[in-house]
């Protein structure tokens, strides 16, 4: 009960009138690591974000970040923040970016508080949001037994039977989190599991967790709360009713790219296209982390991409003679 994860920190004042050498949009691992590298390179660096930590905070256990084993998402975020706080990098929190424009070689970053921040180079690192199933019942029963955040909402399913939709690391981690509260957890995956072997072994060893592969959820039922699902067995093509008190959806993520839709090239999944230097289709504009077109959405990869973006932005400004 007293696992404190303290994240209120004194912040250096962010000056919206400053012209930044490198402005980071987003406060997840990609953005935070980029700001660390940019600051050390001597670039005037700032971060604008709605929250610090991003998707990382939705993770209970992180055991694949080199050098920092057996941590929590919040714990790792805290370590990242402590590191960049040493350099007093200015952070503007509680803001959303509504648009980015390039005018006369300067990027104009429009904030939802009506301010415009200018920068010579910009990093897009706004991550992604959970993907929805897009099936009947999902919208109506959202927050009425359907959840996209297992660590947030697991306590409401004490001694209940819940289903997790998905087969990747997030889905299996959600199932393991939920097994601490629920009476029974059933993981339903439309194809085969894609999660890491180490996580799958934990799931198989957990008596509370059952699983069904090659099975698709096609409808969610309930009046005021989730009561059950219609599922389709891919092998037999038979549908059946599956009784459940809750549904946790962990089927992947959608990139947060709406504010740059008209500015940069995106792929069919709306991910930002970048080259090996993390450059987007716009000179001086970089992207990193879960929003870019690489398939492995990992904390360490996001952080590394942030570092690459900062290093390349520094080269870009030097090449331009700045």
């Amino acid at each position, binding site marked *: 009960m007293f696992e404190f994860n303290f994240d209120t920190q004194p912040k250096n004042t962010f000056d919206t009138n400053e012209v930044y050498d490198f402005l980071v949009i987003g406060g997840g691992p990609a953005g935070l690591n980029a700001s660390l590298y940019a600051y050390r390179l001597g670039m005037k660096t700032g971060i604008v974000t709605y929250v610090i930590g991003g998707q990382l905070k939705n993770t209970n256990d992180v055991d694949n970040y080199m050098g920092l084993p057996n941590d929590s998402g919040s714990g790792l975020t805290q370590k990242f923040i402590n590191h960049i706080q040493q350099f007093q990098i200015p952070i503007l929190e509680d803001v959303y970016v509504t648009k980015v424009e390039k005018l006369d070689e300067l990027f104009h970053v429009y904030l939802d508080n009506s301010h415009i921040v200018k920068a010579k180079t910009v990093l897009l690192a706004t991550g992604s949001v959970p993907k929805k199933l897009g099936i009947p019942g999902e919208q109506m029963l959202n927050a009425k037994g359907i959840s996209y955040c297992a660590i947030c909402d697991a306590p*409401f399913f004490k001694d209940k039977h819940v289903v997790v939709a998905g087969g990747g690391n997030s889905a299996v981690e959600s199932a393991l989190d939920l097994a601490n509260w629920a009476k029974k957890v059933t993981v339903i995956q439309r194809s085969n599991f894609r999660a890491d072997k180490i996580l799958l072994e934990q799931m198989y060893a957990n008596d509370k967790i059952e699983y069904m592969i090659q099975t698709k959820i096609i409808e969610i039922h309930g009046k005021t709360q989730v009561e059950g699902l219609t599922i389709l067995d891919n092998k037999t093509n038979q549908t059946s009713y599956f009784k459940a008190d809750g549904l946790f959806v962990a089927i992947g993520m959608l990139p947060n790219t709406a504010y740059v839709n008209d500015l940069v090239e995106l792929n069919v999944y709306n991910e930002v296209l970048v080259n090996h230097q993390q450059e987007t289709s716009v000179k001086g504009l970089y992207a990193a982390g879960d929003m870019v077109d690489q398939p492995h959405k990992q904390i360490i990869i996001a952080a590394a991409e942030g570092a690459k973006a900062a290093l390349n932005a520094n080269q870009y400004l030097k090449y331009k003679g700045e």
Partner: protein
Amino acid sequence: MKQLLTPDVTQQIKEVLKMMENPIQVILFTKPDCDTCQPTLQLLEEVSILNDTITFVERSLTDDKAEADAYGVSYAPTFVILDQNGNFKNFRFNGIPAGHEINSLITALIDSSSTKPFFDEKTLKRLEKVDKDINIKVFVTLSCPHCPGAVSNAFRLAMTNPNITADAFEAQTFNELSMKYNVSGVPKIIINDQYEFLGNQPIDAFLAEIEKVK
């Protein structure tokens, strides 16, 4: 009695509380047969001694009913905050502010001691026009990393406009209330028991729902 705050967290809180501007008083209402009252009392005692600007007192929900009524307190444990002039800051935290909710507690302490506006001019103008009585309920769990943001938004709205009150409810302590309001996802925000939304939404989302109240 074993200290709840680790030396590391104690140091962090002490550092952050240097942002306190003016004296405040924290009042915790407790009652007998309450599992979370004792740990909440201990937690608030441990936090309050970390900065000289904070005075902490315990009150009984039943024996000090007049005082509880004055602040609209009807549950325990519930804490409220008074500013340096003894003015109630218009919000109540119901439950234990542990886990991620330590952030809600610390932010509430610092905000209550501040005289600076919490919002930009555009938001303040919009907020000035709220002339109906508004109550904002925010349901949270201790394991929810997004919840303190929603609690802070609700508390800051209550501190800015006297027509607004805000209540944070820690859902595990107030399980029956959570069921009454059909809460199965957090943070869940309910305006005047009529309008609701989910998630750590920007302040505009709060205002949009508040402005629906006729």
